């Protein structure tokens, strides 16, 4: 038995294994506390909610592995959503056809990618600190969005778009399927592609990477551009779910994505980290918040619990470390 556990640990990695157990304990706890927890409606509502946080978290993850940060994720998503909304309004709002939606989606993806690429270029070619660059970009995009919308909502989209946010396919929520696909692509991109390899290397020592013949500047521009693309996907999803675009939608998720990433055991200094434990962390946060909701707490308590939960996990991990050191001495 312990042999099986040991093997599971080595195959999954210590982080993933620990998180899986945590997840199991929580699911068990909540299903005992509330008979409604393990029912179709409750699970499906989680399936609709988690993908948004998940997409934004993946958008934050890649720059973090490269040793950086992208604080502009939420507003990049908002601005991309605006691009989509603008295109659809040009084609008659609720009457816009599928072609207009497709065009809008492309516009959103282009805008998001572009915002990311600009950030990446400033970081790569000027060497400014990613936190500062993305912070400035965040302030700029928020301002731009507020300027364009005068602080209001843009709504009135064709019903076809709502499928993206509310539909199901083979019984699974469409957003969840979308998230699953994106996560798979992200995993392959990071762990198996040349670009992903370069991202890890850049995150651990950019000059040595440059000396080894890898185009580090291109790698940085690309990783922020891809992060921007992913933000655009999140922005499209938001527009489809809320049937409106407002600058500031999802603002509270920014630091939650960082929380999920740290929960997933990613090295805050870059160079190390996997996709799977991060996705698991996103799901854990979602289970926590939905579960608490079912037993009568509100979102604010869930936020507090998220924070306390991260502290608890970090302490557990450091205790584990301490135990290893004790055995060595």
């Amino acid at each position, binding site marked *: 038995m312990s042999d099986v556990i040991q093997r599971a640990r080595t195959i999954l990695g210590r982080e993933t294994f620990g998180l899986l157990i945590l997840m199991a304990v929580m699911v068990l706890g909540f299903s005992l506390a509330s008979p409604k927890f393990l029912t179709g409606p409750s699970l499906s509502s989680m399936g609709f909610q988690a993908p948004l946080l998940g997409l934004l978290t993946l958008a934050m993850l890649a720059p973090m592995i490269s040793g950086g940060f992208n604080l502009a994720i939420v507003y990049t998503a908002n601005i991309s959503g605006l691009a989509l909304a603008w295109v659809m309004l040009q084609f008659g709002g609720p009457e816009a056809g599928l072609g207009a939606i497709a065009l809008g989606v492309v516009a959103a993806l282009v805008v998001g990618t572009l915002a990311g690429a600009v950030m990446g270029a400033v970081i790569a070619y000027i060497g400014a600190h990613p936190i500062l660059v993305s912070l400035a970009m965040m302030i700029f995009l928020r301002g731009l969005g507020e300027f364009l919308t005068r602080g209001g909502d843009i709504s009135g989209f064709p019903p076809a778009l709502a499928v993206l946010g509310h539909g199901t396919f083979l019984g699974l929520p469409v957003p969840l399927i979308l998230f699953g696909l994106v996560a798979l692509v992200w995993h392959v991109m990071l762990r198996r*592609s*040349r670009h992903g*390899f370069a991202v890890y*290397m850049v995150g651990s*020592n950019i000059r040595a990477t*440059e*000396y080894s013949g*890898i185009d580090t500047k291109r790698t940085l521009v690309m990783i922020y551009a891809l992060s921007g693309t992913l933000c655009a996907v999140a922005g499209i999803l938001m527009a489809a779910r809320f049937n409106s675009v407002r600058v500031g939608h999802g603002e509270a998720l920014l630091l939650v994505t960082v929380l999920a990433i740290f929960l997933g055991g990613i090295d805050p200094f870059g160079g190390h980290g996997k996709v799977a434990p991060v996705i698991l962390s996103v799901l854990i946060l979602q289970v926590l918040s939905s579960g608490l909701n079912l037993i009568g707490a509100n979102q604010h308590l869930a936020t507090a619990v998220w924070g306390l939960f991260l502290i608890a996990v970090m302490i557990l991990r450091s205790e584990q470390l301490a135990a290893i050191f004790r055995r060595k001495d």
Partner: protein
Amino acid sequence: MLDDGAARHALRLKGVSKVFGGVKALDGVDFDVREGEVHCLAGENGCGKSTLIKIVTGVYQPDGAEAFELFGERLESITPVQSRARGVSVIWQDLALFPNMSVAENIAFDEMVGLRPRGVDYRGMKDRARVVLARLGVTLDLDASLETLPIAQCQVVAIARALMNEARLIFMDEPTASLTQSETDRLLEIVRRLSADGVAIVFVSHRLAEVLDIASRVTVVRDGKLVGVYPTAGMTQARLGELMTGHLLEDHVTARDMATAPVVFQAQDLGLPGQFEGIDLTIRQGEVVGLIGLLGAGRTELAHAMMGMSQPISGQMRLHDQPYRPASIREAISQGMAYVSEDRLHLGLLQKQSIADNAAISVLDRLLDRFGLISNPQKIDLIRGWVTRLGIKIGQPDDAISTLSGGNQQKVVLAKWLATQPKLLILDSPTVGVDVGARAGIFRIVRDLAEQGLAILLISDEVSEVLYNADRVLHMAQGRIAGEYDPRKVSVHALEEVIYE
């Protein structure tokens, strides 16, 4: 002078042992230093030198000691604070200084340590720093922030800081590792001055020549055991190397006449203002060309230009008789150039990443599966192949590169570049931080590669290293090639004269 009792002992250790997890890091070692003496502590990496230093400075407590005397005082053990209060100071290789603080603050830093709040007297601090620097015969801009100083001057600041703490016994860990020869000479001058002042100095260095030059006695440690204490008078580098490694080091001239081999690389009148000018350089297939000169002579700059990291504005380069003008490192690599940088720690390897990834980084394109993705089995095969070919000692390919010794790390760097199947390999100071035993291994590989037809440019400021391993030696000074020598017709001594004149 070497007569016991001629000078009082600064430090006397007898039968000191220290065990870590069942492994004896130190096994009954004796060590003594007299006041005003320059004493060398020699041994390969991991032989127990640092453990010894850490016992004297109170970082570790000995597991057993027959005698532990500091300035005539018998001790059982000591804490770091007590050690410092008695005048023991260590200048670690990383110097432990503060780059963003001023020179004066760095020198006087220890007087600011403590929890009792008090004001900072910048003027008094500068005065005291000036006095200490005067004792060393040095003047520095006290307001400059430390990071603007070259490493040699940082070294001086570290010494001044030790003196500020009224140090009477100073351990210096590899103080010359990143200094040029002239900087080293100046540092050794300061060391002599201190010794004349009555300060005892323990010098830890891999550079045997300077050890013999500066120290009066040398204590050799191997595998945690004392090999012996020897006067440096009459000691040779070869003998010392043998004592440290436990086997004879074969150092002899290996030069061959390569004048008829086909030309691989050629530079004509290559120039980049402020770095080098009028460089004519020919490297032939299977030839090892040694490029020797002081740091700042333009050696590394020339290598950078050859690798496309800078663009020469005059002259031309040819690779295999084709015009060669790389715009980037990537282009140089794709044309068959490889460059082992002099800074392995920061530029050669990615310390946090695995051995396999470090070896694979320059040849990713060759490790793809049919979907264009990186194939893990191919990556592992690659490193396993090189582990066998170069005799690299590793645990698992997935272990972090930082788990390897300096010599094995350097072999991984070689593997990474050889994997690109280069036509020309540039080795820039390939043995910095590699201990004596492992150096021989690296040069054995270099000569094998040359035998197999690889063209090699070997850059170094250690004359013997170049003379014994190159087929032809070029001397570079002030950005120009100042002379060419045949290793079979010139002695180490004669060449050193030329370079350090």
